[in-house]
């Protein structure tokens, strides 16, 4: 009886919220299954295939963070790639030049990006949510300038190389497969943390903000603190992604952290389905892995991707996850009809 009720409700958003408690375990199961599959997936895929899979997961982390900011709290951040750059450079410098342990560098990268997120978000969110977009836009450019100009620290356009990979219990993770498995574990932990966060009262508060900020405020939600926190945590995820990106690629330069890359990350959130926990994985798949398969179209891929996202926004602003959900609702709805018909 419950299925037709959710299926029949008028707007997709309502049905999403209604379906949430039921789908929560589904998400957890998907995450665990996905982690197991990805643990074994690259066997026999070769170095490059494994690298692409790892890159997909690393980008998913950054997109996950942005999904929290955009999809759950409804804020536009145009600096996710810049935050990722901050994390990547911090990790590269700390582990490569200072010889610090990767785990410490990972934590510091997250802390730095979290703190910078608070610093940026505070003045912007004092005014209006729109202003965060412009402040982060400015910040993106600033970071890019620093990465390019401060050669003594960042290596300028030549970037930083010889970034060491972390080790686990004394085991070096220099092989592509070993490091991929490490990335799978870290991604899994971060995804679970986010899953838990969304289900907690915090997550509910984030969603209340997106749906109706004024009402949330009048219900006693400290809107400024929660929006600020959502943005800072989302930024910290970019820092974590950067901390994994640096040892994965083993060479970083300013170009993957430019403003257009931040735009690209936002498009991945939307393509995957903003406000869906698994959306970022789909979005990053479309944005990172698909271009590897579509090598033929080459640099045209960006245009193709952007066009797809625009069409998707017109047809179904909930992205691929929304489409899947719609399809699933239709399917189960039909099944129910068939059952009742049989009875």
């Amino acid at each position, binding site marked *: 009886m419950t299925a037709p009720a959710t299926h029949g409700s008028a707007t997709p958003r309502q049905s999403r919220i209604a379906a949430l408690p039921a789908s929560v375990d589904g998400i957890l199961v998907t995450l665990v299954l996905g982690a197991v599959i990805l643990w074994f997936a690259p066997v026999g895929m070769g170095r490059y295939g494994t690298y692409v899979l790892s890159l997909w997961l690393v980008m998913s982390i950054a997109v996950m963070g942005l999904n929290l900011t*955009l999809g759950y709290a*409804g804020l*536009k951040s145009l600096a996710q790639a810049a935050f990722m750059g901050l994390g990547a450079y911090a990790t590269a410098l700390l582990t490569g030049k200072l010889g610090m342990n990767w785990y410490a560098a990972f934590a510091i990268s997250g802390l730095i990006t979290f703190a910078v997120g608070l610093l940026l978000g505070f*003045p*912007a969110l*004092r*005014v*209006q949510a*729109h*202003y965060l*977009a*412009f*402040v982060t*836009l*400015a*910040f993106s*450019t*600033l970071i890019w*300038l620093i990465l390019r*100009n401060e050669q003594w620290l960042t290596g300028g356009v030549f970037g930083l190389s010889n970034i060491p990979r972390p080790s686990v219990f004394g085991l070096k993770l220099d092989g592509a497969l070993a490091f991929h498995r490490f990335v799978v574990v870290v991604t899994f932990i971060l995804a679970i943390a986010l899953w838990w966060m969304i289900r907690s009262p915090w997550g509910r508060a984030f969603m209340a903000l997106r749906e109706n900020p*004024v*009402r949330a405020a009048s219900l006693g939600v400290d809107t400024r603190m929660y929006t600020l926190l959502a943005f800072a945590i989302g930024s910290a995820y970019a820092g974590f992604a950067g901390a994994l990106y640096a040892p994965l690629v083993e060479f970083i330069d300013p170009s993957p952290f430019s*403003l*257009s890359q931040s*735009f*690209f990350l*936002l*498009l991945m959130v*939307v393509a995957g389905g903003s406000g869906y926990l698994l959306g970022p994985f789909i979005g990053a798949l479309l944005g990172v892995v698909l271009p590897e398969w579509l090598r033929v179209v080459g*640099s*045209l891929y*960006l*245009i193709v991707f*952007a*066009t797809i*996202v*625009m069409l998707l*926004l*017109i047809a179904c*602003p909930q992205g691929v996850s929304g489409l899947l959900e719609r399809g699933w609702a239709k399917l189960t709805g039909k099944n129910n009809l068939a059952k009742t018909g049989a009875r």
Partner: protein
Amino acid sequence: MAEFIAYLIAGIATGAIYALAAIGFTLVWQTSQTINFAQGEFVMLPAVLVLLAIKLFGAPIWLGALIGIAAFILIFGAGFKLAVVDPMIRHGVLPLAIATMALSIIMKEGAKDAFSAEAQNFPSFVPTETISVLGASISLQHVAIIIVAFAVIGLLQWFVGSTRLGRQMQATAQNPTVARILGIPVERMVLLTFVINAALAVVASVLISPIYLAKFSNGEVIGLFAFIAAIVGGFNQVRGALVGGLLVGIVDSLAAAYISASYRLAVPLILLVVIILLKPEGLMGRKEERRV
């Protein structure tokens, strides 16, 4: 002193360009709540289209300019409104803003792939000479930019303030519901602002491209400064966009000369943050009231 005057004139000239872009940006924002993140690409593309038309059809410059400009205004004025904004605005402001980001990527990559990844010369309509005024050498191009841009902005102010059509447009921007009740064709007015936005972008593009050259990545900086100009001046004011544009242009030019050439971009960004902290409604703006 002579040096200072030269930098000041250069700053006013680039500032006038930012003002043109910022005015279009605020107009579109006022009438349709569209935050156009492709605004910089709007200024980049007309010059590229003109050169492309010349290259493809082997047309003379005037014909190429005509084809390029007409195509741009048609596609990115009216077409943008009908094909992107209209179907998307019902989903809210956020998806639309993201769609304009997608559009900016398409425009930028499209210009790179269909045209050229290298900067190309763009014909100038004034001689590239400098004149000497009070010991300062001033580029004639800068003077021409200032004159044309201010003439265009003046014309726009006259149109908005003194013509029937312009006042209808203003009414639409201020209160679409009441405007509709008064019998103003609101939809057509919104379309008009998009066409005006595209036309302003064309003017800015034709003025700046002889100096900056036509390149696919030009939009990044111009767009950034147009946003800053719009916010610094006051998000909801055409007058504010003008003041903001000039201020950002002058600050940028002086910062490049006297502070640091490699960090010239950073100074206007700092200006932005200071304004947001101290006077978030902008220099010329009024406080917006919030409705539930």
